[in-house]
C-alpha cells in the first residue's frame, strides 16, 4: 500500500506546497528545520487541517479537500512516534503499550503483542512507569505503542533527535527492522545524514515548504544537482549482496552488476547490505591506474557534472547500474577534460557500511 500526498497549507509567512508518493518502506522527509517536515506529518496524522489537498493510503482517503473528506485523527489508524516519546505518565509501560488496543477492538488482529515486545526488548520494563525509563527505553516503548495500535501508516518525527549518540545507535536498528519486517509505509522526518543513509528507501527533500526532489534514495543521493546532505557530505548509497569471503580477510560483494572488495564483515553469503560511498572518497583517473593500493578501480563514464561556486566540482559517474559521486577540484575537471560521456576509471578509496545496516533490503 502506498501513501499519496498532495498538500497546500499557509501559516503566517510560511507556505507549504508539496506532493509526493511514499511506497512501502521508509520515506524520509529531509530538510532544514522550518522546511515544513513536521507540518506534513501532522497533516498526515490529522493533528492539523491543511488548507487544501489530498492524502490517501491505497484507496482509503484520509483527507480530500475537494470531496470534503477529513477523517479526524482518531479514525486515521496512523501510528505516530513523536520526538519526545509522549508516553502517558499516569500509565505503566504495559498500559501505554495497550492503550491503542482499547480503541482498536474491531480491527483485524494483525499486530502480535509479544512479538513486538520481544523485538523491541521491552519485556523487562512492562511494569515500570515512564518517568523511571531512560530516553532510549522511552522511545522503544513509544515505538511499540504506535505499532500495537495496528497502524496502516507509521509516522516518526525526528524520533532520535532528543537522544545522545549512544542512544541513537541503540534505536536505529529497531527502525531498520521495522522497515524490513512491516508492510506499512513509514514516513520518517529527519535532518541527520546518518539516518538518511541507513534508513531511507525513498527520499523527499524539502526546502522552505517546497519539494526540491523526491524519488528513490539511491537516485536522489547520486544526483549532483541536489546534494541534500550538503556538498561536503555528498555521497551515494549502493545496495549490494555478499558473494564470497576470501581467505585473506576480504569480502566480495556485488552492487549493480559490479564486483567490489571490502574488508571482511559479519554477513553471510547472499545477505543484502547497504554501502555508503562518500564523494570525497572517489578519485577519477583517465587510464586504469597500475600498482595502486586501492582494491576497487571501476571503469565508468561521466554522467553529469556540477561546478560548485568555489573551487570544487561534483562529478556523477555511471559504473554498471550504479551511480557514484566524486568530489574533485575544478582544476582537475579541466586538466582531465571531463565532460558528459567521457570514459574514466573511478578509484574508490573507501567503501563504508553504515553500522547495523546489514539485513534484507525490501523488494520493490
Amino acid at each position: 500500500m502506498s501513501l499519496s500526498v498532495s498538500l497546500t497549507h499557509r501559516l503566517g509567512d510560511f507556505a507549504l506546497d508539496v506532493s509526493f508518493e511514499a511506497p512501502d518502506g521508509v520515506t524520509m522527509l529531509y530538510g532544514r528545520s522550518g522546511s515544513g517536515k513536521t507540518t506534513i506529518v501532522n497533516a498526515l496524522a490529522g493533528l492539523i487541517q491543511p488548507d487544501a489537498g489530498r492524502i490517501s493510503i491505497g484507496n482509503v482517503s484520509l483527507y480530500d479537500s475537494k470531496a470534503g473528506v477529513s477523517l479526524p485523527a482518531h479514525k486515521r489508524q496512523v501510528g505516530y512516534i513523536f520526538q519526545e516519546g509522549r508516553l502517558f505518565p499516569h500509565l505503566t509501560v504495559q498500559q501505554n503499550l495497550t492503550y491503542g488496543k482499547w480503541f482498536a477492538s474491531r480491527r483485524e488482529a494483525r499486530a502480535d503483542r509479544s512479538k513486538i515486545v520481544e523485538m523491541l526488548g521491552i519485556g523487562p520494563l512492562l511494569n515500570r512507569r515512564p518517568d523511571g525509563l531512560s530516553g532510549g527505553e522511552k522511545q522503544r516503548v513509544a515505538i511499540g505503542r504506535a505499532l500495537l495500535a495496528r497502524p496502516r501508516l507509521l509516522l516518526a518525527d525526528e524520533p532520535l533527535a532528543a537522544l545522545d549518540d549512544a542512544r541513537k545507535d541503540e534505536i536505529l536498528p529497531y527502525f531498520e527492522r521495522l522497515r524490513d519486517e512491516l508492510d506499512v509505509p513509514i514516513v520518517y522526518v529527519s535532518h541527520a545524514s546518518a539516518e538518511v543513509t541507513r534508513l531511507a528507501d525513498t527520499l523527499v527533500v524539502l526546502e522552505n515548504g517546497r519539494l526540491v526532489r523526491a524519488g528513490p534514495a539511491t537516485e536522489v543521493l547520486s544526483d549532483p544537482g541536489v546534494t541534500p546532505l550538503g556538498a561536503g557530505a555528498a555521497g551515494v548509497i549502493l545496495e549490494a549482496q555478499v558473494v564470497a569471503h576470501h581467505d585473506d580477510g576480504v569480502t566480495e560483494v556485488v552492487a549493480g552488476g559490479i564486483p567490489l572488495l571490502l574488508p571482511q564483515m559479519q554477513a553471510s553469503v547472499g545477505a543484502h547490505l547497504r554501502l555508503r560511498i562518500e564523494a570525497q572518497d572517489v578519485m577519477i583517473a583517465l587510464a586504469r591506474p597500475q600498482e595502486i593500493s586501492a582494491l576497487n578501480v571501476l571503469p565508468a563514464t561521466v554522467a553529469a557534472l556540477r561546478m560548485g561556486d568555489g573551487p570544487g566540482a561534483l562529478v556523477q559517474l555511471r559504473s554498471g547500474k550504479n551511480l557514484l559521486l566524486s568530489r574533485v577540484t575544478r582544476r582537475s575537471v579541466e586538466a582531465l577534460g571531463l565532460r558528459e560521456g567521457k570514459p574514466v576509471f573511478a578509484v574508490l578509496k573507501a567503501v563504508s557500511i553504515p553500522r547495523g545496516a546489514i539485513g534484507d533490503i525490501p523488494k520493490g
Partner: protein
Amino acid sequence: MDWLSPQEWDAVALSLRVALWATLASLPFALIAAHLLARCSFPGKQLFNGLVHLPLVLPPVVTGYLLLVTFNLEAPLGQALSRVGIVFAFNWTGAALAAAIMAFPLMVRAIRLSIEAVDPKLEQAAATLGASPFWVYVTVTIPLILPGILAGSILAFAKAMGEFGATITFVSNIPGQTQTLPSAIYAFLQVPGSEKSALRLVVIAVFIAMGALLLSEVVSRRVARRIGQT
C-alpha cells in the same frame, strides 16, 4: 455524644452535610468552567471569568443578599423552583447553595491551573492511538488533572465549612435547620454563659479544618506518585 449539646451536634452535622453537598454539586460545574477558561476562547470570556470570581471579592453579605433576592419564595425563580419542590430560602439546601457559590472560585482556580499544566501533546498522542475526544478526556485529561480536582474539592469543602456571611444573610440562623457551625459559634457568643459551647465548636472547627488539610496533602501526594508527577 453527651459532651455536645443537641444544638451543638446539629450544627456540626449540618455543616458537614452542607459542605459535602456544596462540594459535590459544584464539582461538575467547576470542571466545565475551568475547562472553558483554560482551553476555550469565546466572546465575553473575561466577563465570564469575572463572574466566576465575583464571590471571592464581593462582601459575603452582598452575595447572600443577592441569593435572597433571587431565590425567596416571592421572587419568580424562587416560586418556579418551589413548584417543583426545590426550596432554597431558609432551608439547609440554601446554606449549601450559598456555600457552593462562595467556594466555587477556589475550586475553579485549582482545576483550571491543573488543566493548564496538562501537555496537549499527550492528548494528541492519545488521538493518534485511536481515542475519540471523549475518551481522550476520560483516559488522559481527567487522570492528569486529578490532583487539581482533589485539591480544589478539599479547598472548597473547607471554605464551605467556614462560610458565614452569605449563609446567615440568605438562610438566617435557625437551630437545627440552617444553623451551621460558624453561625452556631456566632449565636453562642451572643448569649451570656454560652462561651463553653462556643469554645467546643471552635475546637471542632479547628480539627475539621486541620483534618481536611492533612487529608488533601496525603491524597494529592499519593495521586501525584500514581500519575508520575513526583
